[in-house]
């Protein structure tokens, strides 16, 4: 990271089609370990709110650090607005980062923290002052300009970190689990606020998180990562409703993943019922498949005609405020979860209890058959 070289390729003229970030077959290995990031390619469009989502150790933070310049890829190239920055140190890249720990400068006031990048860039003092004030306004902290970061709350520190990065008007803002240290309520509030700020400034956000709610709520597109690879990249609706792999299906929310054998529009679950899934022309008869139905897409009452059905026994009832989850055993070893809004059966005695026999139903278009 200490070498400074001029970009290897001349900056291509940035057209609206030039991705803000292009990762071209990036690989990163640490010592003898398996690759933290393996042959990863991604395009992120200008102005997009893009999330890297995955469990810890999936390589999402390493990917972010490579974009920021804090880690060198072992192979592959990184382009920012068409310019090759693979070997550029962080201070030569037009990206800024909001760190997980915020990494505020404790010896400087809030205003000086925010002004740090502008001073390094040699922005005239008057302009610096104005932009810092604007930015503190944007993150709703104008009254705290002269305070030291230590005296602020977690949420306020988070805003300072955001302001300090945004004030430089980077082409891309990298956010490394910035909300992880906040409590749930504050996190919800900041999710909405971050999204609003992103719309207002129009800067590309690359957001790393392990929290699928967060990714789904805020992002234009989500890349679900596992073991150094992107498993599925698409809109929140895509990755949630139509996951391309078993990993994505099970990582995104609760899935009822059942394995069985596909035969003409139905999946015969080992030792259990046949689940009607509708015709899947791309799957050969006799193939081993997994079928997934989201808990909220399983009906327990008000069935529509021609819905496929199955019978089961309630094993457990989990009440959690607005919803209730029933664990229903269809056959020994085959259990599905079904989620119901607490509207129809709002009183305790109306809900089913363990041991009762119930009928479930679903729509074939909600069945996801994964090879």
């Amino acid at each position, binding site marked *: *990271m200490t070498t400074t070289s001029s970009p290897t390729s001349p900056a291509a003229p940035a057209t609206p089609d030039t991705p803000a970030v292009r990762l071209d077959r990036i690989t990163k290995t640490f010592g003898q370990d398996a690759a933290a990031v393996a042959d990863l390619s991604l395009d992120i469009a200008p102005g997009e709110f893009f999330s890297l989502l995955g469990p810890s150790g999936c390589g999402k933070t390493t990917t972010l650090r490579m974009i920021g310049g804090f880690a060198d890829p072992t192979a592959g190239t990184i382009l920012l607005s068409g310019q090759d920055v693979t070997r550029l140190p*962080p201070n030569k890249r037009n*990206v800024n980062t909001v*760190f997980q720990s915020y990494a505020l400068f404790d010896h*400087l006031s809030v205003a000086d923290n925010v002004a740090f990048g502008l001073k390094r860039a040699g922005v005239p003092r008057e302009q610096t002052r104005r932009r810092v004030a604007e930015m503190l306004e944007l993150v709703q902290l104008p009254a705290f300009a002269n305070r030291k970061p230590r005296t602020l709350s977690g949420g306020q520190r988070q805003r300072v970190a955001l302001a300090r990065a945004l004030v430089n008007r980077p082409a891309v803002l990298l956010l490394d689990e910035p909300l992880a240290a906040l409590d749930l309520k504050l996190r919800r509030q900041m999710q909405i606020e971050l999204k609003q700020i992103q719309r207002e400034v129009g800067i590309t956000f690359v957001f790393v998180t392990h929290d699928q709610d967060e990714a789904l709520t805020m992002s234009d597109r989500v890349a679900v990562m596992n073991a150094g690879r992107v498993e599925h990249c698409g809109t929140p609706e895509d990755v949630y409703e139509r996951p391309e792999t078993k990993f994505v299906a099970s990582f995104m929310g609760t899935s009822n993943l059942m394995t069985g054998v596909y035969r003409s529009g139905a999946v015969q679950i080992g030792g259990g019922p046949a689940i009607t899934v509708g015709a899947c022309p791309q799957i050969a008869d006799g193939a081993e498949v997994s079928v997934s139905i989201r808990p909220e897409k399983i009906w327990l009452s008000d069935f529509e005609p021609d819905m496929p059905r199955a019978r089961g026994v309630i094993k457990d009832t989990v009440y959690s405020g607005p919803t209730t989850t029933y664990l229903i055993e269809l056959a020994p070893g085959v259990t599905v979860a079904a989620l119901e809004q607490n509207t129809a059966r709002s009183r305790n005695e109306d809900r089913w209890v363990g041991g009762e026999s119930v009928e479930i139903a679903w729509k074939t278009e909600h069945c996801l058959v994964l090879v």
Partner: protein
Amino acid sequence: MTTVDPQRRPGLPGLPGPDAPRRRRLARLPRLRRRGVEARPRFAFVVTVLFFVLLYLPIGMVVLFSFNSQKSLTVFKHFSTRWYSAFFHDHVLLSSLGMSLKISLVAMIGSVLLGVALALGLVRARGRLGSYSGLIMLVPLITPEIVTGVASLMLYKGLGVTLSTGTVMISEITFSISYVTVILRSRVAALNPEVEEAAMDLGATRWQAVRLVTLPALLPAILASAVLIFALVFDDFVLAYFTTGVDPQPLAVRIYSAIRFGVEPTINAVGTLMLAGSITLIAAALSIPRLFGRSGGLDLLSGD
């Protein structure tokens, strides 16, 4: 919080603890006051009080008799500052004082500069090299001073260097670096590496990141260790004793000879001044981190 019914618990014979009626009274007091350890260990308190008395008694004696009008160390006649004026008219002692101040200042600057660099370097050099050099840094700290004194003396003789103020300075710097490094190393290790990355992210070069972010964060510890080194070097006599030449000897060496060969009450005055000086400096070193709003300066000494 676990509450033990104080009346159910049998009192152990021979153990310091409140007697039964008092215990009943204690049980009614708010539990918090006891921090959960309800019996006050009377024995420990007596030892502590005795300890503090004996700790300050010798210092008090020196201070007291420095104001004695008589030469006696046992009978205090009446208040006088004659030994102080004797000191301020003693050119040999004054030149030693000047020498000590000079040595301490040079040693402070030298060891802090090198120690900061070493501490920053050692933490970066993680792995085997870092841990070995960390261990080597500790050796001078726990080696008795007489060994380091003998070793330095031999080295200078071996190299054919004439002993002088310069040799004292070099030795003091060498062995003070260990202090600075050990104090700063834990501070550097405790720094969040993301902070330096953040500085570079915001356009700072590596050196700017160190200068604008890392060093200011370490400033309290650096100042504290500088003051501490000044006081330690000023007070050190073993190393100085072994490496000093024919120049005016450092004050501590002079005092050592004076105490050995017949006690002059001037020593009381000089001693009082030195005590006052070093106590002020050490207290300052301990409280510097506090001035910067960090809690606790004591870990400076325990190295935690």
